[in-house]
């Protein structure tokens, strides 16, 4: 065994340098030069330079004037981006049905006239707890509440959703989705698409 100790130790040290120091340092160097914006978290800044979020990380919304994000299982508060987490509730766990039923009640209370069935992603917790997106269906479900609270024309809100909907990447990959934070920022800014 002793014949193997020196090669094992020295080899580990050298390959640690190569794969654990030089490699990540090189990747960081190139990344910070070529993709600085993405490498630092795709941050959204105001005109004054204040950082108000990331394009990739969702935020929690409960105010009726905003589109709501998906439920989040992070602790101690939803959308805690320092401790990502899913709920891990199993499909037959009664706690899952209870949590979903409570979320449906909250949605209905905020918009009692809305009789449409609730899209599943709007009442189920995401895997990360910081999912930035909702489905176009989940956005459409909230149009009535947003229009009423903000005293806007529903058609205008729909146009805004359409302008902020990302299709499948390259037309094939992933699912169509709406970035909730960017949509709400657009709502606040009143950036409604110009009528055609």
């Amino acid at each position: 065994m002793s014949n193997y100790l020196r090669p094992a130790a020295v080899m580990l040290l050298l390959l640690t340098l190569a794969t654990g120091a030089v490699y990540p340092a090189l990747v960081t160097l190139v990344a910070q030069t070529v993709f600085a914006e993405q490498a630092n978290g795709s941050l959204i800044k105001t005109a004054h330079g204040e950082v108000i979020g990331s394009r990739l990380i969702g935020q929690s919304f409960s105010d009726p004037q905003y589109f709501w994000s998906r439920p989040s299982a992070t602790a101690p508060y939803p959308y805690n981006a320092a401790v990502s987490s899913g709920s891990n509730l199993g499909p037959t766990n009664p706690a899952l049905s209870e949590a979903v039923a409570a979320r449906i009640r909250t949605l209905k209370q905020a918009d009692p006239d809305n009789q449409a069935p609730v899209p599943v992603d709007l009442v189920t917790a995401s895997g990360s707890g910081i999912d930035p997106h909702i489905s176009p269906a989940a956005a459409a479900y909230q149009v009535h509440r947003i229009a009423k609270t903000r005293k806007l024309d529903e058609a205008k809100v729909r146009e805004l959703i359409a302008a902020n909907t990302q299709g499948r990447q390259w037309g094939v990959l992933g699912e169509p989705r709406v970035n909730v934070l960017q949509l709400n920022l657009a709502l606040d800014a009143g950036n409604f698409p110009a009528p055609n």
Partner: protein
Amino acid sequence: MNGPGFLQIASYLIALIALAKPLGSYMARVYQDESVGLNRWFAGVERLCYRLSGVDPEQDMRWQQYAWAALAFNLFGLLAVYLLQRFQDVLPLNPQALPAVPPDSAFNTAVSFASNTNWQGYGGESTMSYLTQMLGLSVQNFLSAASGMAVLVALIRGFTRRNAQGIGNFWVDMTRGALYILLPLSFVLALVLVGQGVVQTFNPYQTVNTLQAVSYSAPKLDADGTAMVDAEGKPASETLQTRQQTLALGPAASQIAIKQLGTNGGGFFSVNSAHPFENPTPLSNFLEMLAILLLPAAMCYSFGLMVGDTRQGWAILGAMTLVFVALIFVTVPAEQSGNPALTALGIDQSISAQQAGGNMEGKETRFGIVNSGLWAVATTAASNGSVNSMHDSYTPLGGLAPMWLMQLGEVIFGGVGSGLYGMIVFAIVAVFIAGLMIGRTPEYLGKKIEAYEMKMAAIVILIPPLMVLGGTALSLMLDAGKASIFNPGAHGFSEVLYAWSSAGNNNGSAFAGLSANVPFYNLWLGLAMLFSRYWLMVPVLAIAGSLAAKKTVPVGPGTLPTHTPLFAVLLIVTVLMVGALTFVPALALGPIVEQLQMLGHH
């Protein structure tokens, strides 16, 4: 499933198979010491490594020497990861001032990464400093993968050499695999991932001011930070408000690239590739998912090239792909059909152009059902174990396929190197069974399979089920094992069975509701990972040594051809029979009974 769903699965399979040949031939050249284009970059580094560590690259090792070298190297790797965790509080590159990792968790994680399992009892962003992630975890992502590939190459030499004492040089095989294969692929993938939005920075976590304040209730703490109680003696809570969000950052892309390529799976962040900073877009998801199976698939082609008959490699790749595709079409439709308990609440789970529908609990909107289900099957087919959705929240049938893929012994693609050497062991068993049926001495690739090889093959096949079933039984008999279960009923049993299937086959994925970061699971799952990695690696090397010493038998009329579809089917049947006979009773108590309950209740 709809048109776009089928199209995404098809493009994934086409990309995977199309890349197997070019990458497979490149890897074969690396391991046969032929010159490759990257020589002029790395040949100097390679020679320097040998010189400084006192390795003679020309030395041909006997199988025992090869095994000792692999074990010593892995042991030092394990120690390094352990020590980095234990002392990260006093080491640099710890901007969040994270404390030292407790001994039981540090042991579990060190074993986990050295053994290419990458089971994670901890949450990355709240536990590991940047230094530990880079210098400990990333390095083992490279080296455990390179070790597995080296052992495979040694086994292949067992078939190609005749009357030989040695099976190659571990240091050379491991170093060349790391430098010429894993490093360049990771470098390219890491940069593409950053382009999609994966973070790569040494800056501390970023605090942002959110658009809307969040109210939440938290335990009330006194000045010393201990929880206060109210007048009735119950824990007191208070309502707090925050308008800030802390975004966890770090040098993630460099680690994520190798975690996928090396079938490691240990994420930078707690929720692994469900985290938007780890897997931000559908394209990053496609590439990460492709990287899971890329090397295991290409190594089948390398194997064919190296044994001098590429059809042998295609037969094995074909067998793997068939089982893989069949199980995709178990999990994805099961998830797409949704949860009957939620249908009863009046929720719309249907698939449409407006939504993915289905069982979305624990899944990300950008991935929907198809990309979550496909990932779950790919990551458990390979011994990768990274996740982009929470498997614990899958429908019982949807979660059964990933669990069973691990229990098959991680041979449907499997780990880089380890998957194919496991599959070759199953091929040895398959020719043995065929030999019994036709009454001839079994041969594989020109080598007679005799009692010694069969004994070793039996050890390789029996150890993982022993770990999985024995460990599950032990956990369920002890209070310490049962205390960690999160979901009630049959699903709770599945959590424990899944954890042991994962550790006992070096996969690393989890039904994460199980609180595994407790001394009981840290210790026992750690031991299971250790045994299932090295107690398999050593008998495989023994087979390699025994085969290398034999002469080659010429192909005769009684030889069973092993490159035909018939043999691929025989191989599949062997793998599935062993897997089914061993695990169906346990699966019946978990996912199968839960599926019946779920459908019957409503």
